[in-house]
């Protein structure tokens, strides 16, 4: 564990000393729980319709594909007219676009950010690197298939996919959400141990809490 996560005594600005135990005080100790659907299908359908209309993307770029999101944010492609927008923090977003190759170091940050996002949340893998490693298939430092580590709702193939492909991807994702099939967060909670085992297999110096909520 990193030093900042160790139990220690801190002195507050008012001079009072108190003990903090970051793993207990700052993080949720319970593993993630599944979120049951609403009591009536028609209500759940309504929820899903509403969810599909507000996709808030976490502004986190990983590979070359992150460059394709800039034209989407600007007038040329203007993704905002489809109800899609970018947010600066995980707590405010519900869609994580993994925009290309993902190094082991970045994977650590991605897991932390993903776990901090609120349910329901979605993951899109952008580009062939997230699907099977792409041209980094023999690299010592990039993961080869994203769905081993995070529940992926949709892949957008290409190296790299153009902004039009992303716009089409957003529309497909909306369909998936409206059909009630974008259950990534529940899948992650259900198979939490499997995902953790995969993550720890490649992250050799695991120095953070198991669940970063």
């Amino acid at each position: 564990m990193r030093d900042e996560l160790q139990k220690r005594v801190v002195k507050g600005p008012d001079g009072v000393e108190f003990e903090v135990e970051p793993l207990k005080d700052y993080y949720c100790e319970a593993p993630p729980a599944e979120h049951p659907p609403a009591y009536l299908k028609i209500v759940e359908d309504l929820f899903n319709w509403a969810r599909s209309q507000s996709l808030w993307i976490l502004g986190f770029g990983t590979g070359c594909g992150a460059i394709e999101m800039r034209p989407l944010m600007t007038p040329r492609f203007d993704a905002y007219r489809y109800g899609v927008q970018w947010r600066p923090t995980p707590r405010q977003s519900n869609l994580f676009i993994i925009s290309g190759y993902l190094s082991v170091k970045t994977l650590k940050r991605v897991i932390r950010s993903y776990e901090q996002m609120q349910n329901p949340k979605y993951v899109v893998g952008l580009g062939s690197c997230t699907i099977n490693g792409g041209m980094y298939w023999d690299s010592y430092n990039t993961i080869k298939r994203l769905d081993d580590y995070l529940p992926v709702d949709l892949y957008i193939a290409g190296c790299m996919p153009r902004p039009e492909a992303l716009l089409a991807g957003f529309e497909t994702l909306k369909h998936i959400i409206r059909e009630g099939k974008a259950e990534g967060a529940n899948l992650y909670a259900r198979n939490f141990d499997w995902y953790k085992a995969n993550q720890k297999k490649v992250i050799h110096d695991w120095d953070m809490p198991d669940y970063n909520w």
Partner: protein
Amino acid sequence: MRALLDSLKSLYPLDDIVLQRPDLAFATVPAAQVRGLLHHLKEREGFTHLVLLTAVDWLEDGMFQLTYLLHDRARARDLGLRTLIRRDRATMDGIHDLWPTAATYQRELKEMFGIDFPGSPGVDDPFVLEGWTDLPPYRRDFDTKDFSERNFNHREGRVTHDPAAHMKRHLYPDEA
């Protein structure tokens, strides 16, 4: 540039001098002379900017080559200094006191090639690899494909087409 090289040659044992362009030259110096020569170039000859510090792995010769590329802003010219150190004793004097930015290069070289620079700030901290346990990955005896196959799960069904064979089959189906 030639005048500069001539005057340096009288002071330091320069070898393998290559005048690549009128404003770019390379030379090799023994490792023990590197610091002195860099200091001289920085203080006396106007090479105030360290462009980069990088390494080459000459596996067959058992040597690492370090390349220091310097730039002289006033006269718009570059000078690259090469030095060879032994692979099995990969240690070199740091130059972070001459250029603080060199500490970052040295940290990277420690991680990617395993070349140590004792005393360089943060040289043992992880740079891009965290929790790395294998050989330094830029060493040529490190097999990246083999490591990738051992360390990562791969998706089934990946095929690779040799472009020449594929185009031949595509364009001349009778001959294939």
